[in-house]
């Protein structure tokens, strides 16, 4: 179901309270994996959004600095498929803290050493999130692809060995991950890699993109309607403090980049207005209190 096909309802509108977090779809929708639950359906052949060159990122960083953006996040696809990714991080760290969301497959020891040097030289934090969807190959690989569990673990190990302790991001596709027992299994796994201070973030599933084939699409009642949402209850939504830049302009948030209707403008200045929460994914953010931030 695309936004264009949804019968318009009177949806609440969320105001941009402050532009604190700027996301970059820096890897486009191109990925070296094709996970079964990917809400943007990234794959080796998905060029819906292309990787962003450094010069384009810089243009947005300049505008973001004028607007006082607090922090920058980079995602894809796989950001490290972007050949300029490390230069992009170096440029970003001159104006603010940066976090990269990666699948971990391209984190060899040499790259991790370079990333550590970047982090060390910067005045601001450089952080990493590595996606993992199970505590062993049997639970992870059916979702992220055969052989990925071992490769992801190798990437995590390399980051940690370089002195960078990533946040492990798990979606609730991994059954039981959100419960105490599930979390403990991830902590145990990470400790077994020698990570004494494991960091973990659990995310709910967005029933869009590839996930609709795996887990099913949204039900028609899973929508936000004006009047059903209390005043002030929208302030916690990420879209009240973020925007997402892709090679094709500025979108409202990281979730809806495959919806042209969620594009808000060409520059950040175009996107300082409000946005209607019409998409069922907005329901997930509201009900689960989701933030894509760490």
């Amino acid at each position, binding site marked *: 179901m695309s936004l264009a096909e949804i019968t318009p309802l009177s949806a609440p509108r969320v105001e941009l309270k402050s532009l604190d977090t700027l996301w970059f779809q820096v890897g486009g929708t191109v990925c070296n994996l094709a996970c079964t639950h990917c809400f943007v359906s990234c794959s080796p052949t998905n060029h819906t959004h292309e990787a962003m060159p450094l010069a384009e990122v810089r243009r947005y960083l300049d505008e973001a600095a004028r607007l006082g953006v607090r922090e920058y996040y980079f995602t894809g696809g796989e950001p490290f498929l972007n050949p300029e990714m490390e230069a992009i991080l170096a440029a970003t760290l001159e104006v603010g803290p940066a976090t990269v969301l990666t699948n971990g497959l391209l984190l060899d020891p040499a790259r991790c050493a370079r990333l550590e040097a970047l982090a060390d030289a910067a005045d*601001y934090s450089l952080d990493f999130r590595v996606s993992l969807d199970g505590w062993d190959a049997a639970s992870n690989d059916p979702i992220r692809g055969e052989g990925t569990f071992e490769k992801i673990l190798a990437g995590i190990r390399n980051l940690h060995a370089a002195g960078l302790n990533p946040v492990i991001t798990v979606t609730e596709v991994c059954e039981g991950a959100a419960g105490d027992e599930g979390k403990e299994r991830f902590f145990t796994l990470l400790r077994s890699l020698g990570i004494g201070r494991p960091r973990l973030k659990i995310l709910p599933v967005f029933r869009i993109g590839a996930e609709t084939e795996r887990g099913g699409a949204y039900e028609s009642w899973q929508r936000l309607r004006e009047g059903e949402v209390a005043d002030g209850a929208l302030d916690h939504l990420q879209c009240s403090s973020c925007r997402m830049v892709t090679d094709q302009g500025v979108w409202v948030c990281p979730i809806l980049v495959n919806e042209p209707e969620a594009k808000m403008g060409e520059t950040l200045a175009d996107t300082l207005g409000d946005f209607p929460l019409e998409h069922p994914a907005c329901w997930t953010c509201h009900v689960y209190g989701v933030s894509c931030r760490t």
Partner: protein
Amino acid sequence: MSYRPPKDLDEQERQARAKLTAHRGMATWGEKLVPLAVFRQAAARKGLKLPREERESAVLAYTAGLDDPTPVEGPYSRIAVFGGVYSNHLALLELLEDAARRGAEAVYCLGDLGAFGPNPEKVRPLLAQGEVLAIQGNYEESLASGREDCNCGYTDPRDNHFAEISYRYTERNCSPDFKAWMGTLPRRRRVRVGERELLLVHGSPRRVNEFLFHSTAPVPFLEVLLDQSRCDGILATHTGLHWHRRLPSGRDVVNVGVIGRPANDGQTHVWYSMLEAREEGLGVELVPLAYNHAGLAAEMRSEGLPEEFVETILTGWWTTCLEILPARERAASRF
């Protein structure tokens, strides 16, 4: 980067896999596959494309100063500012003496009187005795309004677990009268030191529980915050870690630190700040403060507070509420 489908799947799963990568020349629009050009053209038509002058005025409107009726106090030539007492009455006693020794004309507290430490009521007479001018932190807001939690702003369950223990203890051990008094405190103050007008807040000018850590409070962000706040400097606390940035505009942002627990650096002392009018502008001194930390630890134990809290007081390393730390601050942490 070639994608190899898994081997041992049945035909149905193989087809599902194939579909996952069947994007050559196609774009994903919602759940539909459409030719790339169709998506790109649709995207190109959407969103605003403001003319250049409208973009400029949108940015100026966004960064413009906001009206703030808060009266301006002072001017002073020298003030002491601290935050996060966390019921550490022994450190507060020491601070009042130290600030007087250093010639502070006024002493300001940026909130969070309770949490973490023992016997919150012991703080109140000291505040009165030192004529401390305070604002509400998230603790005062929560205690005065009967909120169920401290509204510290943590996002990780491990942080929230210990935050809840602190809040329950403080809530139980504060008199209704003390809580009501907390609710009478202003949420911000404006204070003139020399020529400089400083805005005193708990978290940030925008939110009582916003975390301004050094590694995640970048210069461009702080410059805009100062523009919007119409002041020459911002003094905040809330994170528990002290720092000072002199900005390219010559203005200052200071996290004045907390006197309730040490700064996660393996030292047992705590931190506060002295602000002083100088010819070249604002003088900022971050001041380490030693106090009877062993006495506090003993009192915490006798109150049955968690041993994790006591360990922090005795070692200078945080053992709880660590997940909120940015990567840089966490890397410098022992736990």
